[in-house]
């Protein structure tokens, strides 16, 4: 009996079912190695066994994304694999997206290490390389033999828990994960060398290619402020005394909603700030400096706007990862849309 079990995912073509005419083939599991799995099994040697192969048509997967994912995850679960391998998909777009989707689901739901392979221009590579180790392959199945050693090496490392090194060493597509290492020279020395090359017009390599940010277009103006429902969200770290949800002082991984019901102003007895990036003493004395409830209640009474949502959203905006911030924004936005909020005041510090 082999030490490590592998479940393999293939589309209808590589699974030997048929071409485009069989692309609506429903998920099926076979307890054997098939197609590229034969080469993989041979290269992996006797400590490893492909215990099952799941085959699914590319169109079926694309058109029944949730159902297909659920079904396949259940199929995989039964075999309790040590590693799950999908593809490789080379430059096949639908197949690439299917491999990425199912790998991500297996990893998240079953906690099994996953691996796929794609050509760099496969649309699935762009969608999933950040989340999944995606071995860099050529654009056609003819390159399978070249990518197989990389796949096999990574499968073994995943199965045994050995450290996976950088993308250029292991041959996978860069995920965009920033990992520390001790360079041979200090930053100032590396910077100076880069500058001397740049001034001389010689090629140089930056340590950090500039990221591209999402740009969010501003919302339409509020049509009638007199009836508008307004909410407050702050990155100034205002929380109830004692910080019940343990929101961090820096690099927050969560946000909170807290009540404003029946309050005319933010009382320092009830609210505090846990923000780690500014001198808090003035805000600890008067939290209205950051969540301006006192003024908003006055304006609400005077009829300057319709009504104030009876709770506010809050987190710490210092050292907060953009990924976390985007997630908070999505969740807060969804909730406010449900509440019929027309406008939000964001206060920063």
């Amino acid at each position: 009996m082999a030490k490590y079990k592998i479940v393999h995912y293939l589309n209808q073509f590589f699974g030997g079912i048929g071409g485009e005419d069989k692309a609506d083939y429903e998920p099926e599991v076979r307890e054997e190695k098939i197609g590229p799995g034969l080469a993989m099994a041979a290269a992996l040697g006797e400590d490893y066994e492909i215990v099952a192969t799941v085959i699914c048509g590319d169109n079926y997967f694309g058109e029944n994304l949730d159902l297909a994912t659920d079904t396949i995850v259940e199929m995989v679960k039964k075999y309790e694999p040590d590693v799950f391998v999908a593809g490789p998909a080379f430059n096949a777009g639908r197949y690439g997206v299917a491999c990425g989707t199912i790998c991500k689901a297996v990893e998240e739901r079953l906690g099994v290490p996953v691996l796929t392979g794609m050509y760099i221009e496969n649309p699935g590579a762009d969608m999933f390389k950040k989340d999944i180790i995606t071995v860099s392959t050529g654009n056609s199945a003819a390159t399978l033999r070249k990518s197989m050693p990389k796949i096999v090496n990574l499968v073994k490392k995943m199965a045994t828990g050995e450290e996976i090194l950088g993308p250029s060493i292991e041959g996978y597509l860069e995920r965009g994960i920033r990992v520390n290492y001790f360079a041979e020279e200090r930053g100032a020395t590396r910077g100076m060398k880069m500058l001397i090359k740049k001034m001389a017009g010689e090629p140089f390599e930056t340590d950090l290619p500039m990221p591209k940010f999402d740009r969010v277009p501003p919302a339409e103006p509020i049509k009638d402020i007199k009836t508008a429902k307004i909410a407050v969200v702050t990155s100034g770290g205002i929380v109830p005394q004692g910080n019940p949800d343990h929101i961090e002082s820096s690099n927050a991984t969560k946000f909170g909603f807290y009540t404003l019901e029946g309050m005319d102003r933010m009382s320092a007895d009830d609210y505090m700030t846990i923000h780690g990036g500014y001198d808090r003493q003035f805000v600890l004395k008067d939290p209205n400096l950051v969540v301006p409830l006192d003024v908003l209640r006055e304006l609400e009474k005077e009829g300057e706007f319709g009504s104030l949502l009876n709770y506010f959203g809050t987190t710490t905006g210092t050292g907060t990862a953009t990924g976390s911030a985007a997630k908070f924004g999505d969740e807060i936005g969804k909730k406010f849309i449900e509440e019929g909020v027309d406008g939000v005041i964001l206060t920063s510090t």
Partner: protein
Amino acid sequence: MKLELGKIEIKDIQFADRTYIEDHVLYVNKEEVEAMVLEDDKLLECHLDIARPGEKTRITPVKDVIEPRVKVSGGGEIFPGILGKVTPPVGEGRTHALDGCCVVTVGRIVGFQEGVIDMSGVAADYCPFSKTVNLCVVIEPQEGLETHVYEKAGRMAGLKVAAYLGEAGRNVEPDVLETYETKPIFEQAAEYPDLPKVGYVHMLQSQGLLHDTYYYGVDAKQFVPTIMYPTEIMDGAIVSGNCVAPCDKVTTYHHLHNPVIDECYKHHGKDINFMGVILTNENVFLADKERHSDMVAKLAEWMGLDGVLITEEGYGNPDTDLMMNCRKVERKGTKVVLITDEFPGKDGKSQSLADTCDEATALASCGQGNMTLQFPAMDKVIGMQDYIESQIGGWAGCINEDGSFEAEIQIIIASTIANGFNKLAARGY
């Protein structure tokens, strides 16, 4: 301006009945130093302790780290305008430095942004001050002090002790004598006419609310960009007064030992002509950011620079200043390399910087501050571990009963300092 920097190698610190240096050991009169610190009525208690490399000792919360120096000749006093006389200016003549030892100010937290120094263990690899012999000045403030008043008292205590210890080196023959010189602009340009002219854009932390830096005693948020002879910084013209995230805090030690200035001098006359320093700030108002980045670009053009290195202190908000400076200086035709650290979140997947620009084609990474480490329990803690959970890099529940804890390396003083002092870097996986 020409400065001779004499380095006196210090291998150990011992307490004694007077303060002096003998055979590379700094002897310190503990009572005299403690009494001097307590001349400030804002401080209630002070005690000194010594931490040596390799010991199972943790120092926290650390406010600042300072190398003792003394002005031997050439006019001016160390830390001018803040501790020493503001005039005459510094940067000329001869200065002695106690190389290998530091003054570390410690005491209960001012504003969550004070850090940890471990003298051994895994975290020691990330901290420059795990390798120096440290005289820790542990202070206890009077009850009810406003935070900025407490910050100032702690800052002045450290500077006073460093200047006092520096005096012990006044008449000691240095082990190494280094000479640094930068000439007035036309002479300097004429000295190496065939080499590319390089400058250093030094961005000082000036966001305010405990994020301040001082230049000849001036709060950096109150000046407009100016030029500085690089040797002035070696005499303490710039002093840290901030509680910025520990990992990229530019301590007063790091101002005295600015690695970019050091690097520029190493290449000076060989493959570059080092023209000097453009000093600027990181104010929070947009008008200041725009005005001051315009002025930085104007000064770079006026100095005829072919290239500049730019460093920042802090992250997030100052990234906007970094990018404005980069864009505007490049548009004047001067080549730019940025040196900075990264904050891509615990999983390393988020964007490393809060702002970007197309001109930022060359960047030297100083590592990312969000990676986590297991900090072992130590035999001795200088200061207190009461605040670990709320210090930057910690979180609720991160500390264990035995005093070990898990935290992001943000909590380590100067672990990812964004001026290129360390070898730590980040790369894409």
